[in-house]
């Protein structure tokens, strides 16, 4: 019996040891690092390393964004290492799964921080996870990039170690309103998700509408796990708006557009981000997805040949060669841009410590996938110029081209609407 007790105790000690050692191994900088626990997706480099920890949602609903972001980061890291890494140091990425839980994200980040051996931290695509974590990262003074598009977590100016190489939805929302006015509309209905990005973008959009004199006929909300929106849609329809603006997340986009079209609404639909191929499929494709407009730095390509921007095309080809498919979600672009901005900062800094990188990032100006990334205005954000697109027949067309080619008249004629 005593032996049994000892056996239990021994088993516990062994588990403890395993956890402690596994932890020790992954945080040991350079040298003979034991990396067996990392699922074999990082090969152990010789010499100096630059260790990046990421926290991303890799499982659960909406994990497609996290997984795409991870692939974008890893592709960039591969290219950077081929060209000498960060000032000669090989970049190593270790990914952690947040399971879509903010709390898990905080735990993972605490893990990375208390290990004290990560040179930089990237994550997450979900803005609520970023909001929860950046306080701790900045307290520990670790160089950090966020991948979410919500404005909320960049509002706090004390978070000086945190940067963003993707877009800020609050910069986009007023441009969406401008586009609505340009089309000659003066009323809009809002549909938003109750997640961080969805709600905060809708807040910004509503504020911009008020400022610019566009009437919001109704604002409806839904849960990010909802799939049936009939109730909200019938309220939208009965408020009779000129157009609809949707600020949703992941799996809710497709069903919402489909159900909105089925309800008889044929007008234009504004979207807070580019309307990816995945959403288009679920929404039933053209004509359901026709006349969705958005302002965004990126376009979600379904075919490499559609792309006319040289560096984007090169990225897509490299991505296809690496993973055998095009990015399932535009967060792959965000991950890639993030790594490239960090790389540029390391070149300017000439050193890899957090302070030098942080200061150098303010001088970064380089070509990103969504145009020029320019951090020099001190806002810690990369993009301030965006493109306006409209989705017609499965193709993303620049709004100015579309208007110039008589697309709007065609829209009025096909849908039979007067606005």
């Amino acid at each position, binding site marked *: 019996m005593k032996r049994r007790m000892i056996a239990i105790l021994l088993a516990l000690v062994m588990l403890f040891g395993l956890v402690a050692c596994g932890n020790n191994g992954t945080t040991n900088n350079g040298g003979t690092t034991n990396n067996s626990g990392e699922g074999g997706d990082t090969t152990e480099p010789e010499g100096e390393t630059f260790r990046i920890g990421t926290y991303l949602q890799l499982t659960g609903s909406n994990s497609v964004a996290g997984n795409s972001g991870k692939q974008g980061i890893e592709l960039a890291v591969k290219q950077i290492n081929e060209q000498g890494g960060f000032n000669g140091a090989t970049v190593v990425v270790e990914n952690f799964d947040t399971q879509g839980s903010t709390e898990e994200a905080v735990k993972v980040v605490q893990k990375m921080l208390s290990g004290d051996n990560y040179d930089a931290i990237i994550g997450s695509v979900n803005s609520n996870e970023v909001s929860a974590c950046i306080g701790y990262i900045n307290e520990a003074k670790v160089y950090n990039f966020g991948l979410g598009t919500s404005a909320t977590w960049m509002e706090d100016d004390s978070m000086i170690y945190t940067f963003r190489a993707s877009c800020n939805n609050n910069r986009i929302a007023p441009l969406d309103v401008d586009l609505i006015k340009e089309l000659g509309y003066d009323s809009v209905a809002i549909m938003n998700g109750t997640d961080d990005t969805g709600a905060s973008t809708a807040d910004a959009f509503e504020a911009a509408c008020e400022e610019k004199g566009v009437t919001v006929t109704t604002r409806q909300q839904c849960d990010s796990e909802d799939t049936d929106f009939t*109730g909200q849609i*019938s309220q939208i329809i009965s408020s009779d708006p000129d157009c609809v603006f949707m600020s949703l997340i992941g799996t809710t986009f497709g*069903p919402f557009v489909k159900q909105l079209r089925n309800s008889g609404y044929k007008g234009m639909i504004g979207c807070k981000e580019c309307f990816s191929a995945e959403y288009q499929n679920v929404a039933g494709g053209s004509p359901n997805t026709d006349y969705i407009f958005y302002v965004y730095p990126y376009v979600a390509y379904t075919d490499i040949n559609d792309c006319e921007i040289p560096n984007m095309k090169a990225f897509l080809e490299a991505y296809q060669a690496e993973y055998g498919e095009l990015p399932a979600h535009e967060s792959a672009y965000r991950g890639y841009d993030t790594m490239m901005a960090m790389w540029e900062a390391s070149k300017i800094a000439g050193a890899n410590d957090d302070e030098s990188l942080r200061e150098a990032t303010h001088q970064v100006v380089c070509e990103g996938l969504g145009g020029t990334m320019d951090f020099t205005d001190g806002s810690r954000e990369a993009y301030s110029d965006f493109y306006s697109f409209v989705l017609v027949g499965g193709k993303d067309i620049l709004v100015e081209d579309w208007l110039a080619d008589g697309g709007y008249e065609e829209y009025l004629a096909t849908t039979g609407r007067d606005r």
Partner: protein
Amino acid sequence: MQTFLTLLISGLVIGGIYGLIALGYSLIYRASGLMSFAQGDMVTLGAYLGIFYYVWLGLPILVALVLTFITAFLFGMALERGVIRTLLKKNVIPIYIVLATIAVSYIIQNLAQAVFGSTTQWFPQVFPVANLTLFGVTNQTEAYASFVISIILMIALHLFMTKTKFGTAMRGSAMDPLAAESCGINTSLSTGITWGLAASIASLAGMMLGPMYGVFTTLGSTIGRKGFAGAVVGGYGNMYGAMIGGLLLGLAETFVAGYIDGTYKNQIAYIILIVFLFVKPTGIFNEKAIQDV
């Protein structure tokens, strides 16, 4: 008036799905006195099986439907055989069975992601006509089909349970396994079949939901949890009750979202569930088979 009609029809459609889930719960409870928390994930499983047979293998829809039904049936039976029966034989407290079904639901969700990836899978429409317009309300054909299928299944199951010899055997083995066994009923087989049937009913719901919402790993989990409300409202264990409860739940949700606020839509199901449990746990059909009250 048009708004009311739209909400009514949509509420009935989504209610039909809840009804199908609740039907599964009731069936399992009726035949084995147990509760499964994996029923919602059987919906997800069905949707992915549909993708596998219909999209990957390119089989005709009817064949895919039948194969999905059979595969899910076998899965449900294997679950009963491998897990539930083993636990029952060890004479454990029932919470282990609940926990085992929760573990199964984790496995289904994460296995689906491991096999199919995290991208939402596109399920092509099943019927040649994409949309149907009834009373001026346009909805996807699958939505109407799922409603019709739920009604048919409800009646078929009720007849099966009350009119056929086999159904009587199943009810008997649920009521008193020992007595049923001594009457020559193979109780082990009949509970196995029940679990299989519950899984295949849910898988059909998944086949219908796939073309409507796309297929992703958590497709059925919320619906599965809300389905409990449907089952309790109707009277847990009652076939008609499950259907009526599901429909009522769907209507309540849709009308709240349509006339009050969409933000409160999801709370309604749980509030209804807890109120019924506290006030009238036997449901509107006053189900007598419930042993837990």
